[in-house]
């Protein structure tokens, strides 16, 4: 039995596995080289692969992502790091107007096989500009694939899929999960983007979660099992492609749906998922749909305030309990 690895180590391991198998994979970003990343998610890459494949950049988010795009269009598979997902706003033009549109607006003449990795989400007390869960920003843009793994094994498997993808992928690494541990996956472990995982089977309520909300969902499900409420937990893993098939199949069994999202309720990913369910799965439902999501405020600094904003096990248990009783 191999030692457990952390989510943090899994990021570097996932990148390293792809760099070993494909010389066109190169990394760029702020402090990713000698420093190993501010979250230590690129430790060891410079040492193993050298300065020709691991490039420290200035604090220039537009140049980082724009250069990654130019390299991706010309034969490389760049993996760009944007240190905090809040900073995606500094290079949003590339994610909203350039990368997702260039293939389409040239009539399919170019591909953009790149990964933009970024540390996402709250729970660490970093305040409003270093804590936001921004996966829903990317979801507003047709043309971006979106990965948000919850476990070390999925980090490695989805990193492989993201780097091998000929499409651009925004890869959200959750800051609150970095210290979490899990078994390392076997070599050549690839988790296809767009495949949700049923991480706990249940018969009464379908609970759909993503990234940091997966452990919260599992905890809530475990507590409710003591009350005889049997919750099925689906880890979406990717937002684009969105695995609506797995969610609808689960609803065929449970007839009740709750989403738990760290991003704000306004414009959160759950709204898109739920709209598909309303359209195509209405007949499966025996109860209203509940979305437990972040409050529609910036993230506050103090723990006591932050936990008012981000969904907690307690909030989720209350929502599940009331829905099960409906």
């Amino acid at each position, binding site marked *: 039995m191999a030692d457990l690895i952390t989510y943090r180590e899994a990021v570097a391991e996932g990148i390293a596995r792809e760099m070993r198998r494909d010389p066109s994979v190169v990394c760029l970003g702020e402090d990713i080289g000698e420093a190993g990343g501010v979250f230590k998610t690129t430790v060891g890459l410079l040492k193993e692969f050298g300065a020709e494949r691991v490039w420290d950049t200035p604090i220039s988010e*537009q140049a980082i992502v724009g250069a990654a795009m130019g390299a991706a269009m010309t034969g490389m598979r760049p993996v760009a790091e944007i240190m905090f997902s809040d900073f995606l706003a500094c290079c949003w033009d590339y994610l909203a107007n*350039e990368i997702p549109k260039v293939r389409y607006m040239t009539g399919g003449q170019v591909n953009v096989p790149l990964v933009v990795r970024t540390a996402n989400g709250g729970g660490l007390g970093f305040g409003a500009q270093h804590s936001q869960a921004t996966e829903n920003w990317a979801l507003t843009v047709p043309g971006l694939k979106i990965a948000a793994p919850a476990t070390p094994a999925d980090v490695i498997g989805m990193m492989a899929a993201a780097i091998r993808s000929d499409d651009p992928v925004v890869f959200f690494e959750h800051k609150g999960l970095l210290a979490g541990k899990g078994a390392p996956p076997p070599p050549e472990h690839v988790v296809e983007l767009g495949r949700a995982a049923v991480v706990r089977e249940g018969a009464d309520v379908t609970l759909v979660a993503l990234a940091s909300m997966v452990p919260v969902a599992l905890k809530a499900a475990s507590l409710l099992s003591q009350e005889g409420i049997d919750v099925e937990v689906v880890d979406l893993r990717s937002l684009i492609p969105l695995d609506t098939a797995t969610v609808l199949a689960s609803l065929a069994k449970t007839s009740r749906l709750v989403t738990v999202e760290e991003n704000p309720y306004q414009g959160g990913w759950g709204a898109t998922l739920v709209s598909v369910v309303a359209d195509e799965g209405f007949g499966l439902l025996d109860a209203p749909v509940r979305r437990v999501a972040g409050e529609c405020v910036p993230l506050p600094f103090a723990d006591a305030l932050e936990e008012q904003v981000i969904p907690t096990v307690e909030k989720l248990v209350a929502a599940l309990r009331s829905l099960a009783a409906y």
Partner: protein
Amino acid sequence: MTTADELLALYEQMVLIRRTEKAAHDLFMSGLVKGTTHLAAGHEAIAVGASAALDPDDYVFATYRGHHHAMARGATPEECLAELMSRATGLCRAKGGSMHLTKAATHMLGSYAIVGAHLPMAVGAAWSARLRGTGQLAVAFFGDGATNIGAFHEALNLAAVWKLPVLFVCENNLYMEYTPIADVTAVARPAADRAPAYGIPGEVVDGNDVVAVREAVAALARRARAGEGPALLEAETYRHFGHSRADPATYRPAEEVERWLKHDPLDLARGRLLELGMPEERVTAADERARHVVEQAVEAAKNAPPPDPREALTDVWADGGAAWRT
């Protein structure tokens, strides 16, 4: 050295571009081109002169005022006009339009309509060329207005720090859209005066003199290919028309317009050809060939079919499709 025969070829290319744009203008007036166009009439010597100094596999990135660059790098008048006329045979299969002319097959990697966005892409393409050891160069053409946007500065700095084979060519036509560039820029030469801040050469050239542009770009290209890093070239020029279709350009002093129209790149090249002893009938024959090609292009584009409506839902992803969910 540019021989008389070489100059004749450059002249013919410029005439071809001028006539294609004239046709685009006329087709717009007759309702066959929709949206908008940003004519490059007056700027032809920059595209043609620079292109003559580049290798066929060098990368070119241009702006929404990019008809001249697309054609200088291999796009035919027919492909361009068909694109503007929303035909299935258009350069981008009618998905790009005037502002996004792209011919990836000849390494003309796009025309971008967010000001300055493509400079970091060119940096990335140059980085990629260096990583792959191909000896290719990347060139970004942009307007004077782009020198005041962040991506310009981020791109110059990163290119200089990484000493990449990339050239930044500013087409300074004195106006950023409707406003004199001098009114909104802290230095006299919007591009060249910024080069010292990044420790790279910043040269100025008569952008209406095709031979001067060719020689200036050739010198900077040699330098960049030798590993001496990026450079900036500010090519002074003037638009024959307004910023876009909607702009009659009444804000430009009549005396200024008259002075620049007398300094037309085609007239300059024609005069020099005759000075070099080129028989006038050969120059006139070049004019006639260009006229004929454009007339045929207009007819072919008019007769080409519209795009299949199903094309709207293709080309988002590398697999050719647009599926966002399972």
